[in-house]
């Protein structure tokens, strides 16, 4: 199904160029370690976007890459690093030494990120929690306030809403209008999608609207909330997509080793981001290893009928 002139189905380059302006607040990596839209992050790097605020629970190495490439002014995340391999070297260089530029870190927790986005999705200024009471994490007054339950007087923490400029989210399949099916662990994806001003979807497959409509309970959010749909198979490598490909654990190890030094990071970036024009070229560079990640054991869902 090709792009329509007036439609939302656009190439990744155009989606990033239109919906990720300089200084934007961008939420990504919302499923945690799966369905991370690495292809979008790489395109942001290639387009040299600057002063971004990144929002996410954890991002595995996506945020590390954007920070190392100098795109980021601020991070609102519960955890930044390399989940299976260890610390994020680029993140450390930026936060400890300002290389390639200083990055402000707003400490938070996974639950607080979920609540901030849920507040944004619900259109309320904050949501209350009992988490993080007594923790040093909620020290930014623009993100957290201490309060109490007006009925019992018990302490509560208020987590301020976040409404990102754009959510970049990966899904298994979408129709050209952005009605999309997502399955597997959802993390904060639904909240991020509903909270954001724009939603850019990276879809492994673009399918007919009838496929999506046949199972409306599996839809992530309605198409009218989606600004762009990008057909981007393999767009999440090295992270996994249930039903499509496995996680490339070794790739994270290799990244960890390669980016220990600033020079190593720049070399890695050249090889995997700057020298590859698009995701197709990236997958070709991966070679047979990409094919191997796509050899899967089937696990079909039991049939469901919406008979009426």
């Amino acid at each position, binding site marked *: 199904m090709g792009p329509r002139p007036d439609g939302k189905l656009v190439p990744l380059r155009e989606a990033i160029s239109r919906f990720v302006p300089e200084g934007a607040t961008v939420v990504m990596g919302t499923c945690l370690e799966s369905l991370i839209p690495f292809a979008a992050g790489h395109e942001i790097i290639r387009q040299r976007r600057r002063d971004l605020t990144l929002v996410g629970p954890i991002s595995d190495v996506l945020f590390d890459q954007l920070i190392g490439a100098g795109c980021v002014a601020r991070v609102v995340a519960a*955890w930044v690093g390399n989940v299976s391999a260890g610390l994020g070297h680029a993140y450390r260089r930026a936060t400890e030494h300002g290389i390639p530029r200083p990055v402000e870190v707003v400490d*938070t927790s*996974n639950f607080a990120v979920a609540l901030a986005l849920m507040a944004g999705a619900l259109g309320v200024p904050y949501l209350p929690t009992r988490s993080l*009471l*007594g*923790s040093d994490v909620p020290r930014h007054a623009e993100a957290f306030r201490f309060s109490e339950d007006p009925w019992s007087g018990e302490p509560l923490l208020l987590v301020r809403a976040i409404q990102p400029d754009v959510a970049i989210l990966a899904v298994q399949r979408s129709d050209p209008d952005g009605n999309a099916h997502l399955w597997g662990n959802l993390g904060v994806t639904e909240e991020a999608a509903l909270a954001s001003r724009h939603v850019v979807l990276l879809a492994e497959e673009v399918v007919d609207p009838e496929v999506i409509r046949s199972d409306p309970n599996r839809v992530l959010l309605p198409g009218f909330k989606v600004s762009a749909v990008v057909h981007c198979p393999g767009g999440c490598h090295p992270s996994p997509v249930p039903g499509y490909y*496995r*996680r490339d654990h070794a790739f994270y190890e290799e990244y960890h080793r390669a980016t220990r030094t600033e020079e190593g990071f720049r070399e890695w970036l050249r090889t995997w981001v700057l020298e590859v024009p698009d995701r197709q070229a990236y997958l070709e560079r991966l070679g047979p290893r990409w094919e191997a990640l796509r050899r*899967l054991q089937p696990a079909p869902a039991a049939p469901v009928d919406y008979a009426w």
Partner: protein
Amino acid sequence: MVTDVADWTVGELMVVAASREIRDGEVVFVGMRLPLLAYCVAKRLHAPRSVGVFENGIVRDVPTPQLLYTMSDTPNVVGAVWCTRMANVMGLLQRGDVDVGFIGGAQVDRFGNVNSSYVGDPHRPQVKLPGSGGAADIASLAKRLVVILPHGRHRLVERVDFRTSPGYGDGPGWRQRVGLPRGGPSAVITDRAVFRFDPQTCEAVLHHWHPGQSLQDVLENTGWPVRVADGASPTPEPSEEELGVLREYDPEGVWTGNRNRSDRP
């Protein structure tokens, strides 16, 4: 660095010790790496009715068909009993539906507070660590907390540089005072020892030191004057059965140290 002294690695001993913290029928907020393996061992042996909850939104009550590198690996999704939003599983935690949670960290202090954010002054950190993830939430809200980390004087400290995950704060009554609804650490498992918390003083007390360690080793490598429990003893060794199950899940020793790898002593 602690070295192994037997036909099992210290990592394996830690996993087995952690697995024994899970009781049958419990709802377990599972962390990655060692806690995940601990859950698998408990599930197969002494806690068959326990349920594992993951912060990415997965709940499962059967072990995964493959070793996991992260909680969002595809083998953790298949066969789960629930794939949902993080808010829902964090809601279980906040409501009080989770019996025990596991977290790691860079530092733990005498009152069980855990730091996974900053080494040194948080405003000019010597090391910027990855951060809380879900650890601060688990420490705040689970009924019991088990902390797992490597041992060392700079890791087991009098007072953490930054209190990412609240333990007992500065002692008795602190959790109630700040408004935490329940919980607190019940054990700290390191590569040298097992501590438990005195319900009166809220202080970490040494209960076991691992085979190959002396009591003196542990005391010298801990950053506060450690109280030793009456009847403290060497950590019980892993059984054949425990090791069997554990090695079935992690035959290569990815998370517990490879017994055949060249980097072993």
